[in-house]
């Protein structure tokens, strides 16, 4: 499912051009405007520090005192702020690029409007909701809408990147069409549902572009904590000179500001907005449009996934897997009858019966002309009337048994056992009879998709339960559930059962996600904490969900969960890293501040730096450089290996906590060596 998205949006995103970077660099300066800067309390403190140090530097110039060191500190501080702004700007630019690529698809579309029995050709911008347009093979669909008449295969590559055509049909749950996609075959009538420029996708893209990006709940909570830590360190540096003065320790203002900037969590503070935007972008890369960042974040908290069996867990088509003869009928007789009854059957099930019978060596005798009776909801059987007068029926047990009894055909005693055995195995039993006897049972089995079992196991390791929703009877459902490895199932489910199940899960305190496409899924999509609507689905479903999957791939939900988790982990990991860094920075700066006043201070200088000035500069340079160094990680997200919470915590603590203490020691020492080589030991 990841592969399909490689073609479309991802391809655009991968174009990380010089253009994007230039744009981001320009934005980084624009974000220095105080009103914008104030939204990020941590970096705003750095900005204020920059201004103060710059002023001190200017004062030194005016007084003819040495100013170079102060000026260098001011520049490093400015760079720190710019790097943080740049991180946010890059993330934004990427999001804009992705959204723009979605939009280009729909410029300059023309529609054939059908009104009062005649067509007008007019630009898509003049189409209004309620208009009916006709789209033929090879034409682009001019506006979002629903097919009111006809069925067509549509290439949606322009929007989804998926080049395989999809089927769209009036009156089904796959009736939605998207502006900019191309009809490949047939002709359809589409009722326009959106104002120009306000199509569902237009609105969602606008959201993604982040014009009015709001902080997500966890981001807000973290911002509060980071602001509090910033305030604590502000208190530390404000009180320090007053306390030091009592012991005759004078502390230089520039060094104090350097201490402040090194202590406050600039790394996570600088990268926090970028991480949030990148989370939305990653969802977009997976071809999922989330209506808010909050939804993406929430996906990581999901406890229960409700999944429709068909299409998500199984391939959707049942295939014949076994013939069971009953009542003394011979196997070959059963196979032949089943084969004859299915030769003209166009359904996948029918074709699979033919294939299985032939594979088992049955050859269809030429029976001459025959009449095929297709399956209907009333008869619940299909079959064939051969010219020789032989009639064969296959269908649900009750239907075939009724049919047989009506013809005074005896029903063998072992039929029930055979039917039960098939049902218990998770397959659908199809009873085959001809005019004289009931021959046996064909097992039609659902084929579980390759790899779902492993995916569900991964989800279980993350603490996510999967519940399969199916219209099958409980026996069949249980067997498939066991085969697919879901945790629970809901059999013989009607749409309202889904809603009830979601409410029940939520009442037990769980957060529920579900996938849906039909109009009757809309209430459940709205009730679920995460409702992932299929883009192929109805407008109602798309409005009700809080995410739309452009690929219409129900298993996409699993990726969304991982993206949500990754988003939080990245924030937590970089917070830990940022705080752990402080420990090592202290060992650079504290000796530098006090070495003149307190003999023996050098004992704390475990890095043996070349001098107090270089120590402060090295710590500040490290502090600034670590932000751009971590931009790729912030945008990509911390690599996420599903596993128990315990193992995740241990790994991230080791990498970002212990690593966060160790790395600056090495980096600051290296920067100091460089500084000493360039400017000498000071």
């Amino acid at each position, binding site marked *: 499912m990841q592969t399909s998205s490689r073609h479309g949006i991802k391809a655009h995103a991968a174009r990380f051009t010089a253009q994007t970077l230039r744009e981001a660099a320009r934005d980084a300066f624009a974000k220095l405007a105080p009103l914008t800067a104030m939204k990020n309390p941590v970096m705003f403190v750095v900005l204020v520090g920059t201004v103060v140090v710059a002023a001190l530097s200017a004062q030194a110039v005016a007084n003819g005192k040495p100013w170079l060191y102060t000026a260098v500190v001011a520049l490093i501080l400015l760079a720190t702020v710019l790097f943080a702004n740049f991180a946010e700007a890059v993330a934004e630019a990427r999001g804009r690029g992705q959204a723009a690529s979605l939009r280009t698809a729909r410029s300059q579309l023309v529609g054939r409007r059908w009104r009062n029995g005649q067509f007008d050709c007019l630009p898509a911008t003049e189409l209004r909701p309620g208009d009916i347009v006709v789209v033929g093979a090879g034409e682009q669909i001019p506006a979002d809408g629903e097919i009111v008449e006809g069925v067509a295969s549509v290439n949606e590559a322009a929007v989804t990147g998926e080049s395989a055509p999809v089927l769209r049909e009036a009156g089904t749950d796959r009736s939605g069409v998207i502006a900019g996609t191309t009809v490949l075959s047939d002709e359809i009538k589409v009722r326009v549902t959106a104002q120009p420029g306000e199509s569902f996708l237009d609105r969602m893209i606008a959201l993604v572009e982040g014009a009015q990006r709001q902080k997500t*709940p*966890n981001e807000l*909570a*973290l911002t*509060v*904590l980071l*602001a*509090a*830590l910033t*305030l*604590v360190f502000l*208190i*530390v540096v*404000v*009180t*320090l000179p*007053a*306390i030091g*003065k*009592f*012991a005759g*320790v004078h502390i230089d203002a520039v060094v104090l500001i350097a*201490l402040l900037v090194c*202590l406050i969590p600039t790394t996570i503070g600088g990268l926090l907005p970028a991480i949030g935007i990148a989370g939305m972008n990653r969802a977009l890369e997976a071809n999922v449009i989330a209506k808010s960042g909050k939804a993406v974040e*929430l996906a*990581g*908290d999901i*406890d229960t996934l409700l999944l429709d069996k068909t299409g998500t867990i199984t391939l959707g088509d049942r295939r014949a897997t076994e013939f069971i003869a009953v009542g003394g009928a011979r196997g070959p007789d059963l196979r032949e009858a089943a084969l004859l009854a299915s030769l003209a059957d166009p359904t996948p099930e029918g074709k699979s019966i033919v294939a299985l019978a032939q594979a088992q060596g049955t050859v269809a005798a030429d029976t001459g002309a025959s009449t095929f009776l297709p399956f209907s909801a009333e008869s619940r059987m299909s079959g064939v009337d051969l010219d020789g007068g032989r009639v064969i029926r296959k269908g649900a047990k009750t239907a075939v048994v009724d049919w047989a009894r009506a013809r005074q055909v005896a029903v063998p005693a072992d039929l029930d056992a055979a039917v039960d055995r098939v049902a218990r195995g998770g397959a659908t039993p199809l009873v085959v009879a001809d005019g004289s006897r009931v021959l046996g049972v064909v097992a039609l089995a659902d084929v579980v998709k390759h790899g779902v079992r492993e995916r569900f196991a991964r989800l279980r390791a*993350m*603490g*996510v339960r999967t519940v399969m929703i199916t219209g099958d009877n409980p026996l069949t459902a249980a067997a498939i559930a066991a085969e697919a490895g879901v945790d629970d199932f809901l059999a013989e489910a009607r749409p309202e059962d889904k809603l009830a199940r979601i409410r029940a899960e939520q009442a*037990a*305190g769980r957060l529920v996600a579900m996938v849906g496409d039909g109009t009757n899924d809309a209430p459940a999509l709205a009730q679920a904490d995460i409702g992932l609507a299929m883009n192929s689905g109805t407008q109602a479903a798309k409005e009700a969900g809080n995410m739309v999957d452009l690929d219409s791939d129900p298993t996409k939900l699993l990726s969304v969960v991982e993206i*949500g*988790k*990754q*988003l*939080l*982990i990245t*924030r937590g*990991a970089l*917070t*830990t890293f940022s705080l752990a860094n*402080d*420990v090592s920075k*202290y060992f650079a700066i*504290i000796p530098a*501040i*006090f070495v003149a006043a*307190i*003999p*023996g201070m050098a004992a704390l200088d475990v890095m043996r730096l070349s001098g107090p000035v270089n120590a402060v500069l090295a710590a500040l340079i490290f502090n600034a450089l670590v932000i751009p160094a971590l931009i790729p990680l912030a945008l990509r997200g911390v690599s996420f290996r599903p596993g*128990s*919470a*315990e193992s*995740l*915590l241990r790994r*991230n*603590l080791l990498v970002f*906590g212990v690593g966060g203490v160790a790395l600056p020691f090495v980096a600051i020492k290296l920067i100091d060596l460089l500084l000493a080589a360039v400017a000498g030991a000071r």
Partner: protein
Amino acid sequence: MAEVILLLAVSVALAWPLGRYLASVLKGEASRADAMFLPVESLIYGLLRVDPQRGMTWRGYALAFLASNVVLGVFAWLVFLLQHTLPLNPDHVPGMRWDLALHTAISFLTNTNQQHYSGQAQLSYLSQMVGIVTLQVLTPMMGLGIAAAMLRGLFGGRNAATARDGEARDLGNYWVDVTRLTLRVFLPLALLFALSLTMLGVPGTFAGARIVRPLDPGAGMTEQVIPVGPVAAMVATKQLGTNGGGWYGPNSAVPLENPTPLANALELIAIVVMPIAVVFMLGPFTGRRRLTPLVFGVMATLSLASIGASVHSERQPNAATAGLAAPGPNLEGKEVRFGASASALWAAVTTQTSNGSVNAMHDSLNPLAGTAAQVNMLVNAIWGGIGCGLVGHLVFLLLSIFIAGLMIGRTPEVYGRKLETGEVRLLSFLVVLQSLTILGFTALALVIPGVAGNSNPGLHGIAQVFYEYTSAYANNGSGFEGLGDATYWWNLSASAVLLLGRYPCLLIPLMVAGSLARKRQAPQTAGSLDIESVTFGATMIAVIVLVTVLSYLPVLVLGTVGEQLMLAHS
């Protein structure tokens, strides 16, 4: 060293059953002692006009706590002000100045027992018994009541099974908790311990001071006044209730409070037994058995590290004697009869537990042990004061859950209840409040000319001031001393710090618990953070150390850490 290990082992062994008993008292379980206690309790509920069946929300619990504290505080203040007009004053002690009386009342009301006076000279027997001891008995049980209410909140309150999401939860009845804890736990223990102390030679009398002729006529005085009184009862409550305020100015260094090495050992056990018992209470009280090992593991690790540093430090010679041929351990400011190790152990546990009683001068500790004592109080969650230590520890637990929760990719949850911006804001406020209060007042005292009155210049002078405010904020009460602290500045500024260290630090966590309690509870899954794991315990230790060290290292470097470096250098 063997005595250190033995004392700690005995304390833990005694704390275990005591913790289970605490849980059963707080849960209101039926017991054989009901026949004795229930009538007394109903009498008290009747007098207070309290319905013991009625539960309280966090707000109700907090208001009851505040109301009872206002009444007790005003009462104690009046007693200290007017003691010269009241009975039981055989030595004719005058009334206290209003600011000193205020500081004393607040100090004991906040379970701090910071003393800017010398008890034997400045308090009447009535003040000691009714003013001081009443507060010493009640305030630790009030702290424990708040801790119990907070724990109930973290698990959804007593009505968790029936309440709807968003509905206010029943966190218990304040009056019932405090009454039961006082009658069934504290008073019997204190009685037993007071009798033991009397047996070992601590005075227990209403007679006035003894006047004796000095054994050594060369001492330059013809007679010596030895103040006595009902000392044993007060020493028992001061040690058992993490109070620490002594009858005599020099506290447990005085033979009349702490006569023998055995008395010293018993008092040391009394200092730690209740705070450790609170940890053992956790499992049976909350039904979360594994919570006790987690909290015990984190606290014990930090405790042993700090005790180790302290004992090691005091076994080194004092810098002034280091040049001698056989300098021995640091006995400066210590009772020779207790020796360096026992005194260092005492210094460590009295600052860990928010007790604050001393048997040696902390001012004279080697800088490393002095640093350990200050760090203990800055953390104030290694055992900590009865109840309040646990509340502080739970604050660190919640902060750690927030950080760790993000690292496992879920919105942080406390036993299934989401920790969101509202709670994080309250917890953050506490973190800021501590540094603002301690560092702010330290800076003010040092900058405003003439207010500090510290006896030392330089780094040690800074340490004296910083220690005083840290001790006040931690509601510890021990002092580096050396401050001319009976002044308006010290009485009033310390009073403010005492109040800030007590009420916001107890009530804000209670508020957080109240807000968590009413939230929807998610079931525990493989994806939830396992709080009671070694990994999380390590995370908590890292968070505690990081928050404390990062905020206070610079000022410690300007104090005892700087002193240590200078000593090492010379």
